C-alpha cells in the first residue's frame, strides 16, 4: 500500500513538470476545427468520451459498429476474454461497472453470447466511461460508470437508414414530430441468419433482435420531455417431432425524462425508469401418452426514479444535488414443470433490494482551479438487513491554458449487488443477487493525472490510481449461494495502475496510442493472487487516415493494434489419480500461470459517398489480420495442452445507405 502511494506521489512532480502555466482561462474559445476529429476525449479524472460518429471509420467486428468493442481499447478498460462484451475497469470485475443506457441500468449488455453488445451503433449518440471520479449522482458500483445515450431524432428532416452487416440487418428512421418541437427515432436490428435457418427448416435456430425507440418533445421552450424504450432478446431453439427445447435472455428498458430550465440559474432533470432482464430455459415434449412442459426463469426487475438539480449560485460556485430511488426484485430460478397435467413448481427465495440515495456536488471554479466536492449517502435494504454508505468524492483540477491540466480525485464507492454465473461456462447468461450479511462491497480510489500538449498536433494524457476493495463475494458454488447455504467467501482486492495516452491529430490523420500498466490482486482464504483479468501491460494504438477527403466523398483507412500481457489462468501441470486411477488435473482455486501475450491488428477501409438523397457507406474490415492465435481458454488434451481461439482472422463487410436529412 505504501509503495503504491509513494509511486502516486512520485508521479505528481513529473506531471507538474509537464505543464505550461500560460493561461488561467477555463472557457474553451470557439475555434474552427480543421483537424480530424479525435475518436475520444480524455477528461478529468480518468473519464473518456467517445465520438460515435467517428466509429464508422474504425475496423468493425463482424461488420457491426459496436461501441463496446471500442471502449474496451481504452487504457484501464478491458473486455475480459477476447471478443467478449465486458467492460472491466481498472482491475475491477465485470459487475463493478455500471452500464446506464438513457438513464436506465442495464444488467446484461451482450448479444450473440457476448460477441456483440446490445447497443446498436445506429442508435447510439454518445458513450462516456468514468474510471476515476464518478459523479455523486451515480453509485452502487465499485469501479466504473458507462453512460450510453441514444441520439435524438432529427427535428427538421425525416431520415431513413439501412445497414446490412455480416451478422445483422439494421434499420433506423427518425425525424420531426412537429418541426423544431419534437422528434422521433426508431431503430431495429435483427440477426438475419436466423431467417435463413428457418427457411432451410433446420431444427436448430439462433437469433437476436433489438429495438430502440425515442420520442422527444418540447412541452415549453424550457421543458423537454423524452421517452425512451429498448427491447432486445437472444434466443436459441431446437425443435423436432413434438419435442422442443431452448433458452434465451433479453433486456427491456424504458425511461421517461423531463428536462427543465427554470431560470438562468436553475435547471432540473427528472427521470422514471424500468429495467428487466429475463434469462430463461424451456423444454417441451408431447406424444400420445405423455405431455411435458417445463420452463425455468431467472428474472431481475428494477424500477426507479431520479431527480437532479443543477444550480448556479455564483459565477464561481454551482451545485448539483438530488435524490434517487430504486426497487429491485430478483426471482432466481423459478422452475415450473407440467407432466400430464400435474404441476410442480419450485422457486429459489425471491430477493429484494431497495436503494435510496441523496447526493450533493459542489463545483467551484476559481481561476485556473476547478474543484468538485461531493458526497453521496446511500441506504440499501435487502429485506433483512439495511446497510448505509456515506461516500465522499472529490476532484481537483488545475488548468494551464486550454490544453494543459492536471487533476486529482479521491472517491469512495459501495456496491449492493453481485453478478454470478450459474453455468460453469463463462457465458453472458449471468444472474444478479443483492448483498448478504449486512456487508456491502466497498472501495476507495485515489487518482492523479494530467494532460499536456507536447506539440501543435500532439496531446499527452497520463493518470495513475490506487484502488482498494473489500467484502468482495467470491462465489464458488452458485446453487449453494442461491439457496443461502454458503457457496461463497468474502475477499479483498486492490488495484494499482498507470494509464497514458498520446493523441496526434492533423487534418487527415488521427493517431492514438494508449498504454496501461495494471497490478490487480485479490485475497481470500489467506492467499493473495492475481485477479482473473489482471493485465500488467496493455498497449493499444488506433490510427485513421483520410485517403480521400472531398465534400462528397471520403475514404478512410484505419488500423488498430493491440498488445497485452496474457491473462492469468488457473491451470497447472500437476495431475493426480481419481478414484478409478485416471488423471485429474490439479487446477487450483486461484491463477497459477499466464496465457501467452495477446496481439491483434485490425484494419478497416471505409468509403463514404454523398448521394443526391443521402449517404452511402461501405465498410470493409479485417479483424486480427495477422491471424494471431490469441487463446481465450486452455485445456489439457492427450498429455499436452490446447487453446481455443475465439477470433482468428475475421473479414467482414457492411453497407449503410441513408436517405433524407440535410
Amino acid at each position, binding site marked *: 500500500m505504501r509503495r503504491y502511494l509513494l509511486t502516486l506521489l512520485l508521479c505528481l512532480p513529473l506531471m507538474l513538470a509537464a505543464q505550461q502555466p500560460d493561461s488561467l482561462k477555463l472557457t474553451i474559445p470557439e475555434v474552427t476545427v480543421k483537424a480530424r476529429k479525435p475518436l475520444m476525449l480524455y477528461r478529468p479524472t480518468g473519464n473518456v468520451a467517445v465520438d460515435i460518429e467517428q466509429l464508422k471509420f474504425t475496423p468493425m467486428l463482424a461488420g457491426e459498429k459496436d461501441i463496446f468493442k471500442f471502449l474496451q481499447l481504452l487504457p484501464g478498460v478491458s473486455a475480459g*476474454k477476447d*471478443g467478449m462484451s465486458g467492460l472491466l475497469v481498472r482491475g475491477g470485475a465485470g459487475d463493478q461497472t455500471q452500464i446506464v443506457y438513457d438513464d436506465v441500468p442495464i444488467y446484461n449488455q451482450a448479444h*450473440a*453470447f457476448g460477441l456483440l453488445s446490445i447497443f446498436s451503433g445506429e442508435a447510439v449518440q454518445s458513450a462516456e466511461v468514468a474510471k476515476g471520479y464518478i459523479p455523486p449522482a451515480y453509485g452502487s458500483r465499485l469501479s466504473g460508470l458507462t453512460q450510453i445515450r441514444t441520439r435524438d431524432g432529427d427535428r427538421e428532416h425525416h431520415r431513413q437508414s439501412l445497414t446490412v452487416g455480416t451478422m445483422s440487418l439494421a434499420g433506423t428512421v427518425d425525424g420531426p414530430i412537429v418541426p423544431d418541437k419534437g422528434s422521433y427515432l426508431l431503430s431495429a436490428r435483427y440477426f438475419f441468419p436466423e431467417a435463413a435457418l428457418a427457411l432451410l427448416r433446420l*431444427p*436448430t435456430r*439462433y437469433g437476436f433482435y433489438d429495438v430502440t425507440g425515442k420520442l422527444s418533445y418540447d412541452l415549453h421552450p424550457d421543458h423537454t420531455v423524452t421517452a425512451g424504450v429498448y427491447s432486445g432478446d437472444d434466443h*436459441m431453439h*431446437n425443435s*423436432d417431432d413434438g*419435442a*422442443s*427445447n431452448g*433458452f434465451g435472455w433479453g433486456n427491456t428498458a424504458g425511461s421517461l425524462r423531463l428536462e427543465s430550465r427554470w431560470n438562468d440559474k436553475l435547471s432540473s432533470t427528472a427521470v422514471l425508469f424500468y429495467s428487466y432482464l429475463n434469462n430463461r430455459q*424451456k*423444454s417441451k415434449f408431447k*406424444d400420445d*401418452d405423455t405431455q*411435458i412442459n*417445463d420452463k*425455468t426463469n431467472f428474472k431481475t426487475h428494477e424500477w426507479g426514479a431520479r431527480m437532479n438539480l443543477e444550480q448556479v449560485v455564483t459565477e464561481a460556485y454551482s451545485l448539483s444535488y438530488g435524490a434517487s430511488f430504486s426497487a429491485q426484485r430478483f426471482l432466481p430460478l423459478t*422452475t415450473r*414443470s407440467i*407432466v400430464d397435467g400435474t404441476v*410442480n*413448481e*419450485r422457486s429459489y427465495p425471491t430477493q429484494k433490494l431497495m436503494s435510496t440515495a441523496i447526493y450533493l456536488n459542489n463545483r467551484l471554479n476559481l481561476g485556473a482551479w476547478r474543484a468538485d466536492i461531493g458526497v453521496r449517502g446511500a441506504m440499501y435494504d435487502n429485506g433483512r438487513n439495511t446497510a448505509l454508505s456515506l461516500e465522499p468524492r472529490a476532484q481537483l483540477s488545475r488548468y494551464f491554458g486550454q490544453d494543459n491540466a492536471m487533476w486529482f480525485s479521491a472517491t469512495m464507492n459501495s456496491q449492493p449487488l453481485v453478478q454470478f454465473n450459474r453455468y*460453469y461456462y463463462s*457465458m453472458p*447468461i449471468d444472474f444478479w443477487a443483492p448483498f448478504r450479511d449486512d456487508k456491502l462491497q466497498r472501495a476507495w480510489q485515489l487518482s492523479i493525472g494530467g494532460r499536456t500538449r507536447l506539440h501543435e498536433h500532439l496531446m499527452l494524457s497520463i493518470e495513475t490510481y490506487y484502488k482498494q476493495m473489500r467484502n468482495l463475494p467470491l462465489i464458488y458454488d452458485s446453487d449453494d449461494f442461491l439457496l443461502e447455504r454458503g457457496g461463497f467467501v468474502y475477499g479483498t482486492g486492490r488495484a494499482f495502475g498507470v494509464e497514458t495516452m498520446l493523441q496526434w491529430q492533423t487534418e487527415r490523420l488521427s493517431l492514438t496510442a494508449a498504454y496501461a500498466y495494471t497490478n490487480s490482486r485479490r485475497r481470500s482464504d489467506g492467499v493473495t493472487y492475481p485477479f482473473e483479468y489482471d493485465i500488467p501491460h496493455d498497449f493499444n494504438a488506433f490510427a485513421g487516415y483520410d485517403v480521400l477527403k472531398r465534400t462528397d466523398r471520403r475514404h478512410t483507412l484505419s488500423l488498430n493494434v493491440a498488445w497485452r500481457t496474457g491473462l492469468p489462468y*488457473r*491451470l497447472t*501441470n*500437476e*495431475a*493426480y*489419480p*481419481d*478414484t478409478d486411477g*485416471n*488423471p485429474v*488435473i*490439479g*487446477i487450483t*482455486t486461484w491463477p497459477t*500461470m499466464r496465457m*501467452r501475450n495477446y496481439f491483434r491488428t485490425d484494419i478497416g477501409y471505409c468509403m463514404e459517398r454523398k448521394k443526391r438523397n443521402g449517404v452511402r457507406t461501405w465498410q470493409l474490415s479485417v479483424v486480427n489480420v495477422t491471424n494471431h492465435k490469441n*487463446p481465450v*481458454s*486452455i485445456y*489439457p*488434451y*492427450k*498429455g499436452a*495442452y*490446447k*487453446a*481455443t*481461439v475465439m*477470433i482468428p482472422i475475421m473479414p467482414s463487410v457492411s453497407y449503410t445507405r441513408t436517405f433524407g436529412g440535410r
Partner: protein
Amino acid sequence: MSRHIALLALMVVLFSCNVDYKMKHDGVESRAVVNALLSPQEDFTVKLFWSGVYSGDSTRFRPVANARIRLTEDGDKVLDLAASPDGTTPTAFRPTAGRRYRLEVDIPGYGRLSASTEVPEIPSVDIRSPKKNERYSHFELSRIETDPNTTGLWITGTSKNVWLHPIALGRQATPTDTERDIIFGGDDDPEPEEIDSYHTASLFVDQVNAAGDVSDAQNKGALVSFSDFLHITQENFILVLPLRFSVYGFHSQYSEYRYTLTATAASKAYDLYKRSLYKQQNNSGGMATGNPFIEQVTVYSNIDNGLGIFAGYNSYKTPEL
C-alpha cells in the same frame, strides 16, 4: 444444457478454432493423494499415491510406499493397518449406513492426511419401464425416499442385449447366423454395458451433463441428452417426480435390451466430488475441443493436507427391467 449452449454458441462464433499450446513445465512438488470411497455394497479400499506431472492417459502415479491407515466409526476405531506398498490397500470392512467415519493416513516424512464423511441410508426408489419403442426404452421414476445425509441421487445403469427365443415368443422365425451376428456382434451372451446417454425433458434434473440432441425426439421423448448419468439434487427429490426418461436400446423380433438401473444416494462429499470431476472432464480433452467457453474447474477434495476424496454413498440396484 451448458454443453448444448456452448456448442450452439459456436454457430455464432463461426471462426473459433483450437491450436496447440505449450505450457511451461515448472517442477511439481508431489502431494499425497488418498482416494477412499465408503459403501455398504463394497469392501473398503484405500488408494494412496503421489501426484505427478500431467502427461495424458499415460500419466503414472507413484504409490505411497509407507503409510499407516486408521478408520474410525462414530469415534470408535474400526481399522488400523499398514498401507500396501503398491498403493492400493484392500480391506474386508464394509460401513454401516447412518454412521460417521473419519479416515487418517500418516505418511512418515510427509504428515497426516485426514477427512470425514457420512454414509447415507440406501435410497428407496420406484423405477418402472412402462413402454418400449423400436429404439428406446422409457422409464418412470415415481418415488424417491432418502435420509437427510443424502444430498444428491445419481442414476446410472447397464444395458444388455438379450436373445429372445422364438419358441418362447410363439414365433416361427429364427434368425440366420448372419442376422445373429448383426444383432449380437457374434456374441449371444454379451456383457452388460454402461448406459452412456439418458434422455429427459425435465428441468429438475441437474443440467451439468446435458446437451441438445436434435434427433429422433419422438422416440426419445426429449431433445436433451444427459451423458453417463442423471443427477438429481436433494431439493428436487419431490419436484422431479414423476421423472420420465429414456435410454437407447434396439428392439427386434429376436432380441431386446434389458436394463439394470442403480440409484446411488450420495453424501455431500461424494456429490461434490463426482459433479466437479465430471465438470473438469467436460472442460478438458476431446469434450473441450472447439468450445470457447470452457472454464478451469477444480475437482473437489475434502482431504486435509493432501488431495483426493473420502466419501460415502449407498446404492440400490433395480432388478432387470
